[in-house]
């Protein structure tokens, strides 16, 4: 636990509080700035992920051919697809890293929000032991929790849930390759809906500050995907048979 606070939780908390002071006392803007910083730090991984997405998009005609050819032999299909990925120099598992990196950040951010906004007296007192001796951090305390009509320490509302779910859906849709396999189509459809619905639901359960992070992170993801992959990807797919 000590290591967790030392390496992840306390640095995120202190940066967040210092950003709040730098940004005129607005905790909401501090969360947005932190999201941008996290996105910048994870940019090398994101870039690799986006390149893989683009390469996979370009590979779609070949993948569809394989699906048509080996549709009834799943084992063979997977072998052929892995071969194809290997030839193209793509590691399909590589795209999981940006997502896995997000998990400890979410947890630390959740803790930072609850601690920094000090909804309970214990949180405020506990903050004293977690803040660095930076003047900028101490002068910001205690933080105000309202931002654009949101209570950042309170549970998210339905509008925020729709924004989080909607932006996640767009981001997923941009990268979900179409397929001719009907079973795969239904799995894809379910995934594209399930994750946004789940995060929309989480928005209603968790502090708005965390949902703000998700929403901004999704928007940044959409924008970077748009520019790096050169368009809306599979959000506006052309005919399946038409090579990209």
């Amino acid at each position: 636990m000590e290591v967790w606070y030392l390496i992840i939780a306390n640095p995120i908390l202190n940066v967040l509080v210092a950003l709040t002071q730098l940004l005129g006392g607005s905790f909401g803007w501090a969360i947005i700035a932190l999201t941008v910083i996290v996105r910048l730090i994870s940019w090398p991984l994101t870039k690799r992920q986006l390149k893989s997405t683009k390469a996979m998009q370009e590979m779609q005609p070949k993948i569809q051919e394989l699906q048509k050819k080996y549709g009834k032999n799943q084992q063979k299909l997977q072998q052929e697809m892995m071969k194809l990925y290997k030839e193209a120099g793509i590691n399909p598992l590589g795209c999981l890293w940006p997502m896995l990196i997000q998990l400890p950040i979410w947890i630390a951010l959740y803790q930072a929000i609850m601690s920094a906004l000090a909804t309970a007296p214990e949180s405020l007192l506990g903050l004293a032991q977690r803040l660095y001796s930076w003047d900028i951090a101490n002068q910001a305390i205690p933080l105000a929790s309202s931002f654009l009509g949101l209570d950042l320490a309170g549970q998210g509302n339905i509008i925020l849930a729709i924004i989080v779910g909607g932006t996640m859906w767009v981001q997923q849709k941009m990268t979900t390759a179409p397929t001719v396999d009907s079973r795969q189509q239904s799995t894809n459809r379910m995934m594209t809906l399930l994750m946004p619905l789940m995060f929309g639901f989480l928005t209603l359960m968790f502090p708005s500050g965390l949902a703000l992070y998700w929403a901004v992170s999704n928007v940044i993801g959409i924008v970077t995907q748009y520019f790096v992959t050169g368009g809306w990807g599979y959000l506006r797919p052309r005919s399946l048979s038409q090579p990209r």
Partner: protein
Amino acid sequence: MATTLFTSYKMKKAKILLLIVIVLLPLTLVSCSPWGSQSAGGWAGTAIHDGIIYVGTRDGRVVAINSSTENLEWAYSIAPVTAPSSGLSCGQTSVPTAIYSTPVVDSDIVYIGTYSGQVLALNMLARSQNLTFPQQRYGEWEWNCPIDNAKSNAIVADLLLSGDNIYVSSSNGRVYSLDKEFGDLNWESKVLDEKHRKLWTSPVIQGNTLYVSTYDGHVYALSVETGVSIVNGIPDWIFESEAGFASSPVIYENTIFLGSFDRYLYAVNVTIGSDEPMWKFPQEKPAGNWFWTPPIINEGILYAGCLDGTVYAIEAKTGAKLWEFNTEDPIGTSPVLMDNLLIVINESGTVYVFDLSAEFGGEAAPLQTISSGADVRSAFCAQGSLVYIRGEDNWIYAVDIDAGRVIWNLNLAVEE
């Protein structure tokens, strides 16, 4: 991208569920674990009156303990509250009301503020007979603080009893004056901290003026009679600091002393009306942490505990440091004077006794160091040679300064 991967690997529904679990599990663990939780039992301190110790427990009760027999005289359970759900919380549950304010005793009535936003006047006789609360014929009453468009009406600060009235700071940002006999509302102040809407510090009174400090760094002077600011004009505060004030104020000879989140202790003269404080302590660089609790004053000397673990003796007029002592653990409760002895307790529950008649250089040396055996955040009281401490473990400890040890302790939790 993830879906492309899953397309590649012919992901089955079980795998989708696994992914959901991977995402949800850490968040669930965090929100259900103690470090994700917001609820706690409060840090109500001890008060002693006619040999009876009064204290709020961590399980939402006010108890009276006979200091001679060490027996429980009576206990009153405050109505539990529904805990707000947080994150993927483990459901809404009914939990004991937290009590942060130390009981205030006046003749046969014990006053207490609760985190559920109530002020209760408990009659000792009625409580010892376990009668239904409130017994108006015994002078009992309860007052419910309005939420008033704020997030909370919780009462965290100690109540201030002065004359015929009780003054209450609320988490809704207002101060209330109540009639101590019937609990009737005399007045309510305007919202004093629009930014945070929480007043977790107690006011102080000098003459006809009530002084309140806020987390947005202001000191207000309100009329004791009406609750209206005595400053005519805008702004209507008497002092403004860049950082918020962490501790409740104390007043001595027209000067307010209070700790700030910028790790300084401020002295503000209330008669001058200057934008500058009289002094800030430490004079060179800030202390290692916040001055969380108000200092105490004796013969022109302030004794202030700091969350950096150091207790300081400071000359009230000049802010000059007379001596200091580092206890090595945060000091989250105000020192107490016992004749010529200064009692300091840090969060790890070590009791330090300083002989104020001794000549200290810059560094003080305690006369006694006694371990209570419990973590301590609550205010404590002392009588005779005994110090009564409520630990974070929900036990009460009687520490004998002369004997240099805990002479008795009592579990305050309800026995199953």
